[in-house]
């Protein structure tokens, strides 16, 4: 069974269609790069898949749990939204201990894992004992990332995980994403930093105007079917997202 499976998943906000008939099947233990221009519906899709937003129609399961059954869904997922969900008045240690407690994680094991992850992300014990209000954007991002994977979820949703990070930390995050997948965790990764997707994703899906307009491995997406020569993922993305999906659809229908 795929780790994430959606069937005709649709979300309307009034007369606006944010996500339109989305069909996805993300294999277990893989990294799925979810691309799309601003306003394409990526965050709405992520919010639906994490149970935070109800779909207008369609169905979806994550790690076998229906996205409308939040009680079954919660234990299986981790989520790092674009805006790190942290408490300004807490320190990183306090924040992570709190969240671990809410998930009933064993204390000693959690502490070891927190220390290990923070160390890998170059966040010193001194920093971790400082109030989050005093953190830089990158430091917040690191703590929020640790928070998202702390309970070893089956599927982790990452929305711009390398945003605000320096090159070293961004590389560490990339490595951690690959390690997660190696350990069997499915990673649903949304980012505008295409080299990150190119480096870690097994499959790339491109969402445009709420619709999935392309889906393949990065290697195949970067190859031109007509000529056989290669292009960068950025070039592929720009070409795919420059077509009017409605026109394209009409052409396909009439053609």
């Amino acid at each position, binding site marked *: 069974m795929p780790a994430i499976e959606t069937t005709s998943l649709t979300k309307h906000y009034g007369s606006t269609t944010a996500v339109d008939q989305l069909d996805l099947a993300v294999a277990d233990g893989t990294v799925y790069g979810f691309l799309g221009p601003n306003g394409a519906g990526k965050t709405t899709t992520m919010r639906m898949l994490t149970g935070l937003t*109800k779909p207008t129609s369609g169905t979806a399961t994550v790690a076998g749990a229906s996205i409308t059954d*939040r009680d079954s869904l919660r234990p299986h997922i981790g989520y790092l939204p674009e805006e790190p969900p942290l408490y300004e008045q807490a320190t990183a240690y306090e924040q992570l201990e709190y969240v671990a407690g809410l998930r009933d994680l064993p204390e000693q094991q959690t502490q070891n894992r927190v220390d290990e992850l923070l160390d890998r992300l170059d966040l010193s014990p001194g920093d971790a004992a400082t109030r989050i209000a005093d953190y830089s954007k990158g430091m917040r991002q690191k703590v929020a990332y640790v928070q998202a994977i702390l309970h070893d979820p089956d599927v982790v949703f990452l929305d711009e995980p390398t945003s605000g990070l320096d090159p070293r930390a961004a590389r560490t995050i990339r490595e951690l994403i690959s390690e997660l997948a190696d350990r069997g965790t499915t990673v649903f990764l949304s980012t505008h930093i295409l080299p990150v997707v190119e480096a870690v994703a097994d499959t790339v899906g491109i969402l445009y105007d709420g619709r999935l307009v392309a889906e393949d491995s990065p290697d195949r997406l970067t190859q031109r079917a007509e000529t056989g020569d290669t292009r960068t993922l950025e070039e592929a993305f720009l070409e795919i997202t420059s077509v009017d999906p409605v026109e394209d659809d009409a052409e396909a229908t009439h053609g």
Partner: protein
Amino acid sequence: MAETNWLRHTVRVGVFEFRRSVRAIWEDKARAFLMAAGLVFPSLILVGFIYLFSDAIRNAGVVSLPPIARGTVALFWLFGVFIATQRAVSARPRIDAEPLMLTTVSPRTVVGGLVLAETLRVLAYLALPVLVLTGGVVYLFGSVFSVLLIPLAAVLLGLTAVLIGMVLGYAVALLIATSPFVARHKTVLGGIAVLVAMGGYLLMTLPQFGGIGQESLAVLPVGWFIDLAVIGTPVQGSMVRAAAVVGGSLLVVVGGTALIEYEATRFWFTDPVSGDEGDETESGRIASEPGGTRAALADAIAPAGIPAGISQPTRRVAQWSLLRTRRDPRRLNFLLLPVVMVGSGLISSGMQATSPWTVFAPASAVLLAWMAGATFAINPLGEEGAVLPVTLISISGSDYVRGLMLPGLLYGLPLVALVTGGAAIVGAFELPVALGLVGVGFLATMVAITTAPAVGIWFPRFSAISIGQSREVIPPRLVTTALHFLGVTTPATLLAVLLLEPRLAQTLIAGIVGFLPAALLQLASGGESGMLSDVGSWFHALGTIIQSSGLESFRLTVAGLLILSAFVVAGISYRVAIRRFDNYTPPM
């Protein structure tokens, strides 16, 4: 449904949220001090009262619980519900770190945690007075039951008020999120609701007004908490009522939590409707400015407007200030605190004297004037938020400060004049006095408008005042509000008193400027001769001179000085605000 261990998680969430509140308050030292003072002083007064009247209280013998006691407790509970509702609607309908919490624990856990945290906040406020009261009752009557029952009654009172307030608050929040009409008119509807609530409060506390007193509330079961608290003391309550209030509270806890869970879950997972009339702008109804350019800001603030002759940067700041006020009225909550504190006292004393209108005109000249200044410009830099650096490099200080002052001048000033004048006429003041009151209102508004940007830019607040308000609402610092409020209302009140009761004003000034410092210095000197004593004598002489000077000349001199100072302060504040803005370095 909820996860296993949801009760344990609820406690964890509640305690964590409460700790965050405490930290937020602790970081704002002025607020922490005022809150501590607000708890300690009444408690000390209570201690003094118990100590002084202990014999009289003990000798009073057995008395039955009067209806007014139950009515007062009921009114207190209703006030608690009002505050809890208001907080749930305006400050805390959404949770902090929402994506984290809702993907980590069940909504029931979050709701339980929020209820627990709010109850702990209420109990933190009540703890010291309740402790003193319990100690006092045990000391007076040797009642061991009181050690348990008074705190129990306080806990149940606080918990039920929080629960019912949150049930109502989430219902309102859900209505705003699902009804386009309510979303569009939430400012007006909210204002009406607050007025109705305050009207109800006045009806109960001021029987002269509507003939209904607090005793009328004694029939409400929420007043029966006192029946529980007095068990074991010579005050005879009703055991049946005490038992009923305990049973009823348990029902409220179970039913209230379930209802809040239902409402909050619907609220958190509902796509809120928009209160903007977006379709109209999409269909080309955006007005045009002279020259045919688009006027989105002008359209958004209509029917209010800023005259076209004003320079564009100033006009834009003024338009944005108006729009911000209209779209986010919650930011004006800070206005309520001083107005309710001072206003209710004023109205109360006025009611007892003659009629409400006799105090309404001077109250409008003083309080409404302050509000006209504070509404638009008391925390301008904080409200700019992330845009502040762009604002600082985009506009001159003079344009910015003028833009902040403009809405107050255009709308606040005429409103104060109109309301004060109208109230003075209805209050049957003589024409010169009515005109004088309008003048006081006019002057106070001018000072309020010009000083607000100066104080606000000098003491900006960039972070939230407490947890839960941090997402959008950035109220001014307490010290900023207090400084501006006192700076505007103290001289304005003095002017109004000079106009209405010059003899009282003379006595007050003689006391404050002369006799009070003289008495304090005499105390400090311990009655021995020396420098302190000499200065004290000088102050005493000054008080005597003021007290004995001719009333008319005193009135003219002090009024002249106050009016002159108003103009000087306004001018200096304007320049200070501009200079401060031009040299401002935003925090990292």
